[in-house]
Each structure stands twice: as C-alpha cells, then as structure tokens.
C-alpha cells in the first residue's frame, strides 16, 4: 500500500483512470462479442468458426477479469486472488475436460456416434 489508510478521500483522487479502464473493457468486450457472433454466422469452415468463438470467449473472460473485476495480472496484493482464479481454472479443466474425455469415450464405445453425427450434421 502506498498511502496511509486515513479514512479520508484524497482530493487529488479522480475516477479518470478507472473510467478509462471500464471504457476499454466495455469496448473490447463489445468488439469480441460482435466478433464471436460474426464468426458464427460467417462462411468459414466449422473448425475455424469454433476456434474463433472459443478464442473470443477466452479473450473476453480475460478482459472482464482485468477491467471489470480488477484482478491485476502483475504482482501486488491481488496475487492471491489471481492464484485462486488460476487454480480454479486448472481444476475446471481437470473436471470439465475429464468429463468430456470419459463421456465421449463411453459414448463412442456404445454407439457409432460418428455415423450418427453425420446424419444430422447440418448444412
């Protein structure tokens, strides 16, 4: 902490930098959202579309955490919070990824999903 905890507002303080941060976050999110929707409606190959949507989603989550939740990515006191987020992300990958791994393997062994997928694979 750079300043003593006085309980008084510093008259020098202004919301300038914070408003800027929110504005950047909002603009970036808007851009990424529009990008994701545009990718979904575009004529790109399916694999690229999904990649674009996922990339936009991950970027947007990072933007939200940085600009709205103010988790700073560079040192400081909020490192504990950030570590918590990263740890949560790791466990989420283990649990959600594991589920996907197990369930798709099981389903692959029970049904010929590939063939079935092609039937309804649209367009």
């Amino acid at each position: 902490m750079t300043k003593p905890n006085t309980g008084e507002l510093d008259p020098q303080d202004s919301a300038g930098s914070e408003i800027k941060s929110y504005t950047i976050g909002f603009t970036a999110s808007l851009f990424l959202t529009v990008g994701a929707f545009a990718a979904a409606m575009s004529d790109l190959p399916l694999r690229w579309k999904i990649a674009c949507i996922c990339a936009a989603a991950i970027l947007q989550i990072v933007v939200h955490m940085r600009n709205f939740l103010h988790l700073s990515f560079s040192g400081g006191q909020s490192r504990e919070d950030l570590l918590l987020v990263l740890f949560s992300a790791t466990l989420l990958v283990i649990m959600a990824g594991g589920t996907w791994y197990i369930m798709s393997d099981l389903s692959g062994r029970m049904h010929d999903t590939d063939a079935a997928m092609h039937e309804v694979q649209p367009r």
Partner: protein
Amino acid sequence: MSQQTSPIFGNLDWSVTPYTDLLRDVNSSTIVGAGAASVLVLGALFGIVLLTWMRWWGPLYRNWLTSADAKKIGIMYIALALVMLARGIIEGFVMRAHQATALGTLAQQESGLVAPDHFAQLFSTHGTIMIFFVAMPLLIGLINFVLPQQLGARDMAFPVLNQVSLGLTAVGAALVMISLLIGKFGTGGWTMYPPYTGLDFSPGEGVDYWLWAILISGMGSTLTGMNFAVTIFKSRAPGMHFMRMPLFCWTSLCVAIMLIYAMPALTVSSAMLALDRYADFHFFTNDAGGNMMNYANIFWMFGHPEVYILILPAFGVFSEISSTYSGKRLYGYTSLVIASMSIAVISFTVWLHHFFTMGQSAGVNIAFGIATMIIGIPTGVKIYDWMATMWRGRIRVTAPIVYLTGFFLLFVIGGLSGIILANPSIDYQVHNSTFLVAHFHNVIIPGVLYGMLAGIHYWFPKAFGFRLSERWGRRTAFLFVGGFVFTFMPLYVLGLMGMPRRSPTFQNPDFMPWMYIAAFGGVLMLCALASLAWTFWTSYRNRDALAVPGGDPWNGSTLEWSTPAPVPEWTFPRIPHVTARDDWGECKRAGDPWRAPDEYRDIEMPANTAHGLLIAGASFGLGFAMVWHIWWLAVLSFLAIPAIVALRAMRVIEPRIVKAAEVELADRRFRQQVASFAPATRADEETERNRGVPDLSEFAG
C-alpha cells in the same frame, strides 16, 4: 403411502411409520424397524425431559445454540457426529448380525434377521451417515475448534456463517434420523446411483430423503470450506507465515480447498437427480437421451476428493500427536506440507477408479489407474515422516498413540489393498465384492475414525478443562483396533471367495465361518462404542482429579497450549506475535513462556444470534416438505431463507465487547494459577500431578 397427494399433508399419512409395518406383520425385520424408531422417539423424549428437569433449555440456547464462537460450534459438530456415530455403528452391527444369519438354501433363499429391503435401507443409511454425518462433522468440528487457536486467530473469518453451516449440517442429519420414524430411507446405497434411484424404479420418499439431506448439508460444507480457507488466508496472527503454520492447519487448508472445489460436484449430481425425480427431466433416465453414467462420473468427481477431505485432517492430527507424545520436533515438516498439498491436487484426477468397470476403453482406465497409484506416494511419505518423528523419541503410550500405532499397522494394509484395486484388470475381478468393502473400511476406520478419536482425546482438555481417562481411552482404542480387525479382515477373504457386497442373502455355506468372525468383530465394535461413552462419563465424574487448568497437559509446542483449559471464549488475551514455527515451543526454549501481555485491550467478539437456528429451521422445513411433496410448506420455507437473510442485513449489528478489565482479571488469575502448580514431568503425565503445567526442562519438541 397414499395414492394421491393431499394439498395440506402431501404424501404424509398414518401408514408411513414402522409401527404400521409391525402391526401388519410381526417378524424380526419389522421388530428391528419399530425398535429403531422407538429408540429415536424415546431418545428425543429423554433429551427433552432431561433438559426441562435440569432447566438446561435457557443455558443451551444462550451458551450454545446461539453462539457464534468457532470453538463451541466445533464442539457441537462433534457432539452431533458422536450421536450419529452411535447409530452408524449399531446399524453396522445389525448388518453383521443379519449376514451371519443370512445363509439361505435353494429351497428357501431369503433368510436372516431383516428383510432384504430393510437390509438395503441399512447399508444406505449406514454409508450416508458415516460419511456425511459422522466423518464430516467430526473433522469439521475438530478444525473449527483447533484451527483458530493454532493460527492465533480470535475466531473464524465469518462466525455467523459458521453457525449457519452447522445448522445446515444438523438439518441433513435430522432428515436422515427422522426417516427412521416417518417413511423409509432410500435403498440405493450411499451413492444412490440412477437409474435405480430414478422415479421409475424408486418411487416414494426414500431417495428424496437422501437428496435433501445431501443438498442441504452439502451447502453447509461448501460454506464451511470457504470459511476455513478465508480464515487461513486472512486471519493468521502476525508473523504466522504459511511455513510456520502447524501441520494441522496445512491439512485444514487442503480440506478447505477440496470442500470448495469438490462439493459443487455433489450438489450438481444430486440436483440433477432431484430434477429427474421431481420435474421429469432426463439426465440419468434410461430413455430420452438420459445417460446414467454421467451420474457416476459427476458423483465421484466429488466422491474421490471427499475421501481425502476425510483423511487429511486425520493426517494433521497424527502429525501433531506423533510429535507431542514423542517429545520430538515433527520430522520432515516441509515434505509433509508438500505431500498434503500434492494429495489435495492429485485427488481431483483419480475419480474414474470408482467405475473402472463401466465400459470405457482401456486407455482411459489406465490413465486414471496410474494417477491412483501416484497418489500413494505422498501418502507413503507421510507414514515415513511420522515414524521418523517417533524414532528414538521418548514415547508415552497414551490413547492417541495407541490409535496412531493401530493406524500405522492397519492403514498400510488398507492402502496396499487400494493400490491393488488401482489396477483396472484386478479391479475387474474383485469390484463390487466385499473385498472392496474391506478396503475402504480399512482406510476410513483406521484413518478417519482413529485420527478423529485421537484428536478428540488430545484436545479434549483444551475444551473442557479436564483430561479423558487414559486407561479407558486406551481400552477404547484397543477395542476399536480389535473390532476393526475381526470385522473387516474376513471381508477381504469373503470378497476373494466371490461374495458380492450388499448381499441380503447367499447360499454358499463356506462363507459362514468368516461371517461369524465378522459378527464377533461387530460385537467388539459395539463394545468399543460403549467403552467410548464410558470414557466420557467416567472422566466427567473424575473431572476434579483430571483437571488441567494450566492448559498444557502434554507439553505441547503449538499456540493452542499457551492458553488456559478450558480455553476462554476470547482464546488469547492478546493476539500473539509469532516468531517461529511451533511458537509456543520456542517460548518454552527461551525461558518463561507464561509471561503476561504488556497491556490488555477491549476484545470484540461476535454477538450471539439466532440466525443459524432460523436458517436451519427454514431449511428443515424445505427439506421435509420436499420429501413429502408438501408444496405450500416448501415454498414458504424456501422464501423464508432469503427473507431471514435480508432482514438481518437491514439491521446494524454491533459486536459484543469484552472489557479489558475482565480479560485482565481472568488472565492474571490464570498466570497466578500456573505459577502455583508444581510442574509435572513426563512420568507424571497420567497422574493427578498433571495440572496442565509441564516440566519445561523436559521439553524437546
């Protein structure tokens, strides 16, 4: 159960009690059922009469039920767990008694003490109770009691939330208990796998009792985990760096992390099953795109970390007692920390080994099999560390050390049978047999039960001001060790002979000798339970001789031993400044550890509140109403919960201030008392000369 749902009473009517069954047909099964219900009713009546007769309602309400003190909440958790433990052990005994009489013939296949459906209820409630309402409250209670004291904190980070968590856990336990009297419990085992537990195959209230007990108490456990984590991160005494925390705090941190990340999986699987049952969803049904294997997947995503949630606090206790009762510093502190954290993380990557035989390909099985074997490594590290701690120590064979030794011998066997089961191809041979039953009892009883009982024995004087009788403590420990060996070792053999678990009956006479041995073990477990109760009773009667007002009966080295016994509600007169790992031991080495603080200040304590009770009441209403489809009550209770929270939030809540003068008076009296006692040597530890002030010259920890 009536055919149509009444708008007022839901599915409730007079035919749901076991007495109706008894009237319909008198046999051993209905007698056992009605007997259990009678024990519940008489026990409750006895409790009410006793409380009224002794005029204890007021003190109970003022000093306990509305208290937000983590130490008292911890004690209440443990009291709840011990009551449930009694039911769990008795159920275990009834199951052993049943199987010892369950040899059927080809002509008459069903035999035994209880009916098959009743037997299924028994193993389902036994498992549910032992995991969720014995092991969990025991460890959560112990952590609540010990953690703030070891960290040098005044209380948990969120004391009132802590009270709410206790309330929610108690509601879960109450729902399971009341299923003895009103209706039936589920028959799907403690895991309640669909589709058997879906509406098609298990109509009626049984599975719903389980669901609501789990959903409500699971919410409490999640909040508890959050509370522990925040307490450890934000409320440590100044100077208490992470690497200075006692090992019990480290294992508590692991437990907190696992509660936070594992409980949601249980909440999700139970909520999905509830949606299937109540709203006709198709998560786990046979038809319409349901996939029952997803239930096993999500459930064990919780279930495996849960195993380590149970065992790690016991590891923490063993770390404390192996060091204290050997008069030595803990060997390999850093390796124990690393091992605990590794276990916490790796435990999230092994869940598939609970359903190796579900049909996934060999590659998936072996990936999880290897992860399972890897988790044995940090556990092995710990065992060696404790043995090295005791090596060449001056060991006093107290009750906790008997538990620890029993743990060493038995837990290693259980762990090794686990490594055997971690091999998918072996698992295919013995899965769903009593070999598995023997394995998990072999890790959970020596691990969790011994660990928690050792912990209770160790910290009991801190809570109540007098030691437990060592003689009876040791007898209890020996009975639990013997009871375990006789009950469960035969089950390994039976499993290899091909006996499926949860069999209400069997036709192979070769099983019988082993069944009788196991039943004898069941008798020993009952004796152990009685002996445990007697330990508390006889120690209570001799409390003057066993009193240790000096507060440090075992010559300990962690912060909690610096305070009087029983510990005052404010714990520390001043929050200590920690300068080393095992700070109290460091003070002992430096000379006079019982120095009074320089000055006393007012202490803020959380004010008593009925918040937890109100939330618990509403949650009970919700759970019970949902089980019996009493919709108006369910809606009312559900709305009451946010209303209670919102109303409390509107008020400004002032903490209770304990005046500096009061603290000073109590603290000065304690220090004078300590100075007046003759220090007790190690040899005197079990005698009346142990007044809680140890001989510092003997301190070597």
